[in-house]
Every structure is written in C-alpha cells, then in structure tokens.
C-alpha cells in the first residue's frame, strides 16, 4: 500500500525522489472515492513545498494537491485529463500527477513507516 521507495506528506501526497514524480497516496484516493476530474499545473511554474499545485475532484469532494517539495514543474500526466480513474486504479504508477525539478523542501517528508503510523492514527 505504501511503497518504501517513496516519501510522503501529512496531506497524503507521495514523491519519488529518483524519478521526481508526484502523486496522491492510496489512502487519499480511497478517502476521496471515485476521482472524476484533475486540474494540473502548467509546465514551468515554480512552487514552494506546501503550495497548492492542482486539484482533485471526486464524487464526494474537491481537494487541493499540495506540493511535497519545492521546485519547477517539468511534466504533467495528461492521461489524467481523459482518465482520472487512473488515480484510483494505480495511484503510484499510471496515476502519477506531475514531475518536478526538485530544488529543496525534502526535509519535512515522511518515510513509508512514519506515514503508515500517521494514517493509522487518523
């Protein structure tokens, strides 16, 4: 459920520090329910860790996606525009949301174990 090679945020995003890809966690997609729409940022825009970088809309709610790290957007997953359900089906794979050139902000990230403890408390 929570791959060890990823880092996590308290707001339920994941980041892969090797591929620089970012998405939302299994827990997040399950809490949201069926995702019906994703709003992606523009390529080239710079964000600080914690900034809102996009929006996920499900049948239940609309939620901001917060950037786990600081950096510049270099790619977005355009498949999500036609198939937002990829986030539900494969949150760590085909459901990735964007790729960033990371410039910092990794200090606050949680490892898989710490993240799992966090959601067990919730």
């Amino acid at each position: 459920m929570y791959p060890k090679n990823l880092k996590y945020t308290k707001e339920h995003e994941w980041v892969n520090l090797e591929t620089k890809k970012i998405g939302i966690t299994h827990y997040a997609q399950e809490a949201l329910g069926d995702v019906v729409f994703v709003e992606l940022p523009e390529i080239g825009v710079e964000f600080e860790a914690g900034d809102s970088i996009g929006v996920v809309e499900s049948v239940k709610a609309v939620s901001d996606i917060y950037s786990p790290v600081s950096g510049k957007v270099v790619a977005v997953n355009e498949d999500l525009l036609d198939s937002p359900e990829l986030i539900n089906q494969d949150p760590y794979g085909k459901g990735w949301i964007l790729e960033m050139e990371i410039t910092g902000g990794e200090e606050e990230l949680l490892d898989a174990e710490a993240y799992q403890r966090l959601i067990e408390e919730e």
Partner: protein
Amino acid sequence: MKEKLIFDLSTPGRKAYSLPELDVPQVDLASLVPRDIVRQEEPELPEVSEVDVVRHFTRLSQMNYGVDTGFYPLGSCTMKYNPKINEDMARLPGFALAHPYQGEELSQGALKLIYDLDKYLSEIAGMERITLQPAAGAHGELTGILIIKAYHEYRGDFKRKKVIVPDSAHGTNPATASLCGYDTIEIKSNSRGLVDLDELKKVVGEDTAALMLTNPNTLGLFEEEILKIADIVHEAGGLLYYDGANMNAIMGYARPGDMGFDVIHFNLHKTFSTPHGGGGPGSGPVGVKNFLVPFLPRPTVEYDPRREHYYFDYDRPQSIGKVKAFYGNFGVAIKAYTYILALGGKGLKEASELAVLNANYLKEQLKENYQVPLDRVCKHEFIITPEKKVKEKGIHTLDIAKRLIDYGFHPPTIYFPLIVEEAMMIEPTETENKETLDAFVQALIKISQEALENPELLHNAPHSTYVSRFNEAEAARKPILRWKPNK
C-alpha cells in the same frame, strides 16, 4: 415501462398548437437579421400532440420527490415546508402582473413591500439596511464580499488580499473569495468542531479582508466564542461576513449584527419558506451595518413621508452598482414577506425553537445505532456516521442514503462537511411532526441492521425507484449533456 424522451415520442406532422391566420404582411427573416445568423436547417423539435405532452410531463412529475411529497432532511439546505398562502399572495394580480417599467407611481405597493421587507430582515439580522437584489445565496456572498472590498478600497487600503474561512465552511465561501480576487486562507477547526482561536490569531493580520463564517456552523454547532472571534478580526482591520445558510436555528434568539458581523446574506429560499431546488428561483438578500450602507447595490428603495411616496434612489456614488436586472427575484420576496407577517416575531422564534428541538430529538434517537462525532446539544442540524461494524461490512454513507429512498425519505446531505469522514448531515426543520421523525428514525435503525445482515441490499439500493443506482463517477467523468438524433 421506461419513460421515453419526448424526442423519441415524436411523429412527423403531430402538433400541440394552433396559431391564428397571419394577418400582417409576411417578411423574410433574412431581411431583418444578418443572413449568416439565420438558421438554415430545421431545428429538430419533437412533434407531439397535446395529450402526449401532458401525459409525458405528468408522468415525469410523478417520479419527482419534493417537500410536498415527504420528509426532506437535507442538512444545511433547510428544506422546510412552504406554506401555500405564500403562493396565493405572490399571485395577487397587482404583484403578479406588475411590470418593472410601469414606473414608481403605479408601483407603490411593490415598493412598499421591498421597503418593509428591508426593515423586517434588518431587524431579524441586527443590520442597518438590506438589498434584495442578489438572486440566491452564492450571489449574495459575491455581493457581500464586493461590498467589503469596496469599503477597504474606498479607504485607500489596498493591502488586504486574504479572506479567512474555516475548514467546515460551505464550498461557496472560498469560491466567492476567489471570484472577488482574494486568496482564501483555510483554518482548521478545534476538537470541539469550532473555530480555533489560536489558529485564527496566527493567520489574521493587516492583509485580512474578511472572515466568512456560518453560525451555527455546518456541524450544527454554535460558535460560542463568536464575540472573541469578532474582536480578533476587527482589531486587525478585517470585517466579518455571515453566511446565512443556517439562520433557521437562531431567528429571534440571536442576531448576527449583535455577534459582531458586518455583512450577512440570507437565503429566503431556506429560512423564509420560499421554493427551493427545482421549485423556483432563490433569493439572497444582503444586509450591512451602518458604515457599509453607502456601498450597497443601487437603487435602494426609500420613502418620502412628506409626499407619502416610495421611490428608487439611484444617487449613490459609492454603490458597487447593480448586481441583478431590476430589483431581485421580487416574486420570492413577496413569499418571504408573507411568511414573516404570517408568523410574526413570536412565530419566527417558535420556528427556530422547533427546528432545534427536532434536530436534538433525532440525534438522541439515533445515538444507539449511529456514531455522533460531536455529541452535545446541537442547533438545527447534526452529523451522524455509520458505526464501525457497519463500515467493516463495506457499507458507506452513500449506501445508507440510497437505501433511505426505499423507505420513502429524501436522503440527508452526505459527505459534508468535509472534516467529518462519512458524514451524514441531518436537518429535519421545524415543520415535521413527531410521527414523521419517529418513522425516519425507525428507517435508519432498520437500515443499520440490514447493513449487518444483508449488505448487498444497501449496495444496490434504491430498489423501489424508477431507476436504480446511478454510476455517479461515470456521469461526472463522461457526462452526456444533450440528446442527439439516432441517424
């Protein structure tokens, strides 16, 4: 039998109208409007007879569910019964046939109604003046925040860029702030479901334009520290905006103006018993404190006692301007005016009392079979969630809501507010008797048992309706928004 679309009932040559003979010279349409905007193809309108039309729409209306059919406990929406006298009054020919261009002299009755309703709503809210222009709640919010913005900018204060909203707010609050060009700052509620004063102090500052708040809030709980909240925001130079969605809980008992709010919108279609949902347009009057009156939309309706004459005042240079054609949804204002006069001050207080009593009665009755995350005396609405053992059967709040339809009830609001997982938000309103409330409780208890014994029954609900469970995700992902002929 499946009800066909009216297009599918079409047979060439059938019609449900008969027009009189043309008694003026026929003119070529293309000579009146530019040729390139004249439609070349026939529009594919359904060709049906009168009886086809009447039966089709009567059948559709029989599939509908409204507050005239049954209990409708949709939290935060106040689906109270709308007394029929409201309709009688709105249909009086002097009102129903009035034309906005007939002039002040011929509109004295209508103008007096606007003037008086302003006074009544101002008294109920503890505000100085009201505008009736906004068409509904979210439009009221937009108007209210534009007034706040105009006030700050009039003072030459352009540094206020932020609007604060609690995480339990209606989604329209951040949307309004954003539409007015503000950044929205969300603050977390404390463990009691109320605004966290420390969190508020952290974010409030000289860039704060306003705090938007509902009181009681969307958890049905009264913000007990509202006076402190108001002080914190006012000391920083910000204003307080009251979202009137939950006004039904406090009429005659507490006034937003006295709590420190500077601007309020009402939802006449909630609190003041005018039709709601598919039943008619809304109305979202906005009230303000004295210092904001100059910024209200124009025209205002004033009274000249010397001439005993009501008139429109357009000479309001600081006004944010008009926010709607003419003077708002006037027909709705007539109904709210009727409601206020029919109930009177004492009756409005009783309405709020019963709304709160009904909600607390339901909450107590449901406690044994559902979880009540914030279990203390509530106002007009409250939240329940399924028990753990029910959730372990794979049952979600959505399934319980759908199953309620089989028992003849409109489901409550679900998955709102967002801060409570699997929330079901119940607002019975004051117009329901004990028998109805008890029947609703029995249905919910029965459903909680079904959830344990036969979860599939809930997963596939509703079973008794014309159409069963929709694929809501697919409908949102790939909506089919128009009918296309089968060719």
